[in-house]
């Protein structure tokens, strides 16, 4: 039933070249992300993990009292280990090394795609499709756990699908199973929330496979055996998650509260007991120059979404008509896609209910893309004969289109300030001003801008606990009387159409040319 395309020296050689180019492309994207801001950027999650790494080191425990990352200790420990090993500071690890590690995702992705599509060409095509997804690229280019979480998810899926092809070699089966559990355990230590999401998707996919194959009536004994083994693996994963949450790393028990809250909020929303908490998709208006720009930049996402959904509908229709021609791997691909699509739909509902900062859809989309890409690639490969791939369109037009989409994806993933209203870069003048404030405004609060841009940058570069000032952001706190205003702040003010909260007669207490610190003029005896 399973056809094997990837045999033969020529194919292996081509695959090797393609993988090398894929890694090279990802490396170039990483270098671009670094070169774009030259290390002068800041972002909330990256700064949080920097803090977490420092806290683990300072307190000598995986569960520090401050800056604990409650979803898993994997990434903070890895970052700290790299720092200790290389002698690089935590900030350098987060700003440079973390981004340069992004290309590692290529191998797990390619391996899984090859396994699920049973074609190295489809695998390369799927990996390329994945790489041009801005929502997938964005977390890869930050100092967070996601590149490893996604990579480990892909490895787990690869091992799971790969083990389906092992029929009688017990030794290999055991090796794959053991490796699967080791990788899954690693994934859980990085982020138990995403690990649970994967387990949930696997469980759903298993159910869909059972139901689908039962409906078609084509399930062979070996397929039944494999489905059973997947079921046992899911149970095994649940046990590992339970041990991890309740014995190894209890802070992850926060997730129980989160899941409970998710269910409550979703039911409340569905039953109409409360109005929509927030519309997370309003961010389009605020986050980007305008709506056409946003649509253009997210075009790769939309194309993948539309194409994959169309293919899925065709396949689902085939299953309903009991005319599904693929094997278990195909069925699994369809089922996994369905499961992650369901998670995506749920996440949109949860976003409207206001759960988890209303950005769950952003977290789920990369998982969805990881299954949508091979679905599209495999569909293309299955119908390659229908297309004249030697035509100019395939030789020149389509590659050019894909490379333009890639460029758009890179611009979106790096929050290009020409197009995005969410700026992440900062200037040397701003850094100097914060340093001055830290030395001279001890114990006071300093407003640093309309969002966390400067604060995140500062916290990546130095331990927040050692700061003498308290950094204030967004709307100025009433007690904050010192404000950092830079040329970037002024431009941001124009872009956002928000007034800088200083008056013309407020005191300028610091000025380095590009950045000033204002002290609000006291207007009562209790202001100073």
């Amino acid at each position, binding site marked *: 039933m399973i056809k094997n395309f990837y045999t033969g020296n020529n*194919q292996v050689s081509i695959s090797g070249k393609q993988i090398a180019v894929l890694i090279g492309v990802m490396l170039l994207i990483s270098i671009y992300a670094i*070169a*774009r801001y030259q290390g002068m950027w800041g972002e909330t999650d990256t700064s949080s993990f920097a803090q977490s790494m420092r806290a683990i080191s300072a307190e000598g425990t995986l569960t520090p009292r401050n800056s604990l990352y409650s979803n898993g200790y994997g990434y903070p420990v890895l970052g700290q280990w790299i720092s200790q090993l290389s002698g690089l500071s935590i900030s350098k690890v987060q700003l440079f090394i973390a981004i340069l590690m992004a290309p590692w995702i290529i191998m797990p992705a390619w391996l899984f795609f090859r396994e699920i599509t049973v074609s190295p060409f489809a695998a390369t095509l799927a990996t390329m499709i994945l790489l041009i997804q801005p929502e997938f690229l964005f977390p890869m280019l930050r100092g967070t756990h996601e590149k490893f979480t996604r990579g480990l998810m892909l490895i787990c899926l690869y091992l799971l699908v790969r083990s389906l092809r092992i029929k009688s070699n017990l030794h290999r089966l055991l090796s794959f199973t053991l490796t699967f559990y080791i990788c899954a355990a690693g994934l859980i230590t990085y982020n138990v929330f995403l690990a649970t999401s994967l387990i949930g998707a696997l469980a759903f996919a298993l159910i869909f496979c059972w139901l689908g194959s039962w409906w078609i009536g084509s399930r062979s004994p070996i397929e039944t055996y494999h489905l059973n083994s997947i079921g046992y693996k899911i149970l095994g994963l649940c046990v590992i998650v339970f041990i991890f949450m309740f014995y190894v790393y209890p802070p992850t028990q926060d997730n129980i509260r989160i899941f409970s809250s998710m269910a409550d909020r979703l039911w409340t929303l569905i039953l109409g007991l409360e109005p929509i908490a927030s519309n997370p998709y309003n961010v389009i208006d605020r986050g980007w120059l305008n709506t056409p720009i946003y649509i253009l930049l997210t075009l790769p996402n939309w194309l993948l979404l539309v194409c994959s959904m169309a293919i899925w509908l065709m396949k689902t229709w085939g299953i309903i008509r009991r005319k599904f021609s693929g094997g278990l791997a195909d069925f699994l691909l369809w089922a996994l896609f369905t499961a992650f699509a369901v998670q995506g739909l749920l996440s949109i509902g949860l976003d409207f209910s206001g759960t988890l900062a209303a950005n769950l859809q952003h977290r789920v989309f990369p998982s969805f893309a990881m299954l949508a890409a091979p679905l599209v690639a495999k569909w293309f490969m299955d119908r390659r004969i229908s297309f004249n791939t030697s035509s100019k369109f395939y030789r020149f037009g389509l590659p050019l289109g894909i*490379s333009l989409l890639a460029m758009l994806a890179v611009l979106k993933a790096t929050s*290009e300030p020409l197009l995005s209203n969410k700026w992440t870069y900062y200037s040397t003048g701003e850094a100097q001003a914060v340093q001055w404030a830290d030395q001279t405004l001890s114990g*006071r609060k300093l407003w640093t801008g309309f969002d966390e841009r400067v604060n995140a940058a500062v916290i990546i570069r130095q331990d927040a606990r050692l700061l003498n000032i308290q950094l204030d952001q967004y709307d100025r706190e009433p007690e904050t009387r010192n404000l950092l205003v830079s040329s970037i702040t002024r*431009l941001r003010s124009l872009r956002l159409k928000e007034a800088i909260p200083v008056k013309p007669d407020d005191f300028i207490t610091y000025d380095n040319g590009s950045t000033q610190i204002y002290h609000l003029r006291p207007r009562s005896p209790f202001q*100073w």
Partner: protein
Amino acid sequence: MKCNLNQLLILLVIPGFILSTPQKSTVNQSEIKIKVGFIPLSGISLESLIDGGYGEGMLVYSTNTFPSVHMLAIKLTKELGSNSAMAIIIQIPIDARNFDLPELVDNVLDLPPTIVIESLDGWWLRDSVPSYNLDIQVWGPVYAMWGASQDPNSGTQSWLSEYGPNDLTVQIMVRDENHDGIPDWELRSKIPKILGRADISSNYAERKCEPAVAIDPGIFPLWPYVSIEGGYVQLQGRLRPPVVLDIDSGEITHFSELVSVRGQNCTYAFYTIDPLTPNQLNNTNFEAPFALYDLSGNGTGYPNLILRTEHYPAGDRWFNQSTRDFETVRYSWRNEVGDGHWDYKIEVAGFHPYQSQTPIAADQILVDSPSYEQFPRWVLDHAWPAVTFVNTNGSPARSSEGIYTWSPRELGDDYLRGEVDKPNPNAFSLIPEGWQGEYRFTRDIPPQLYGSPIDKRLHLVGAEAGLINLGNGYLLHEENLDNDLFIDSWTLEENDCAINDDPSTSCHREIEESLYALDQFIVYSGDGEVEIRSFDSPPTVFEITPPADPRSWDHFVESATAFSVNQNDPGDLHSWLDDFPIEIATISGASISDVVVSRDGFQFSLILQPGYESFSENELLPITALPAGRYLVHYDGEFQLTHLSPASAGLDLRANPHEDIDLNLDNHLLSIKAAQFPQTSGVILLLVLLSIFCLARMIFKNIPQ
């Protein structure tokens, strides 16, 4: 622990065993009496057990109704070789209240306790003196700490509602260091359960002077720890047993304070939100300290000086994480022996950090607050940016915490923290009838009072304004027009506003009289007459600091009493002129308004009605033969009059040439400039594009057909 059969038989046949003197005591409460019986679980007599003998027994508190209803079982034990004695207090469940005694012993002793008391002395009562060296644990919904009150009728819930019946709620240490049967200090600690609420975590109370306390032995003098009356707070001058049994419900409702904070002459107390922790310096927040003094030395259970503080260290989350320390101290005192009433108050608000290291709880705990002995002087010696003064004028307020009225916090916490520019506009606009209140918040000086030669009253040095509520709709407004240290303007207002009505609501107000002390003149306006008299007295008769110790209290009482004898009638400003006999000018048919003090003198509007008459000594105020009308009177060494004509308004509409500022900034271009797209990154982006292009070509070129 079970009672053996022999013991029970003995209990049944020996007359002295149960419900008989001296082990029996009855108390009347709504026709129900409580009797106390003793069951010697190990053969020891009650007297011996109470006196520290080894063994165990059980006290049973029951009604004397028929059938008897058992309410409390208290197991008293002292293990062989132990230095301490234990009392385990168990509330008898409803279904066991009618058990006979053997059944009760079998069923109750192993139930979870409500209160466990450990006597560190090893005895409970010796030579008629109860032991108050106790460590106590309280379980379940018993009001054993300030802030735990609950009112099921009103639905008021406290932190106590979050605790189950078997949860340990409060731990208490009580110590009687001189063994006089009156506790010297106690520390109560709430067992934390819910974080993120500003509940009081620690109560500390220390008796600071020899007590005038009558000990109430409660229901059963042999074990004097149970009462059927009282609440959490002790009554003045009494020490009631702490375990309060509600005989209607058969439940323990309170474990009363043993060192009363408010019910005695002298106390040094703390109510802190953050727990007081041993062996470290504690940054105290909330009521820290709460200090009561008997400056008369003759107190009968009431202090006559009380300092109620609210302090928050810098960054405290319960005061909006203010960047500096904040405290208010309500400093109230009585000019007589303490009786729960108060004559005066100054209340200060400021930002002085606590820098002391004061040991409390027999040196087990260090706090940053000033010590009991230093605290009044600490308050009076510091300069404070916001101070109020209240004089109850013989209508003293009754309160266990001093005078609440006119706290500087009426200005608004956000204003005091500097978060907003303007104070609460309704601050200091109402005061109880008969009372005088003053405030200042524009200068930073220590709190001090002075006697004014004009109204013969006490005032706050530096006060900016004040108010006396004369009742019946009359208010006397005080003001400090020249911004020196003294009140120099009095305005008597009559209004028809309802008492304690919202001042912002509209009501009719009319100025009846006004009197000003301006430069070397007293200027009076009222009843259609203006009088100007010479004023050459110093601005104060005397200056005095609020009392901080017995000596200064004696001095204050003497000075204030003597001074207040001659105080002027606040409802008749004209009568005040009798103290200033030298007339400068008198004008009938006239009035003044808009008094303004300037650097070199003062000025006011003088309205001369048609037919007015005037007299001016030496023509100092040249008004004779002036036509009726409105005049500006200006004084800068000599009086000058200027006729005032009505103001006319006009509008001049002209284009503003400065509006030509170019607002057409292309912010998008500016963004590009700001983004500073590096050339290298542009090259890399092109490389990305190129490599993807090559990859895609490679794929489509090599796809096997």
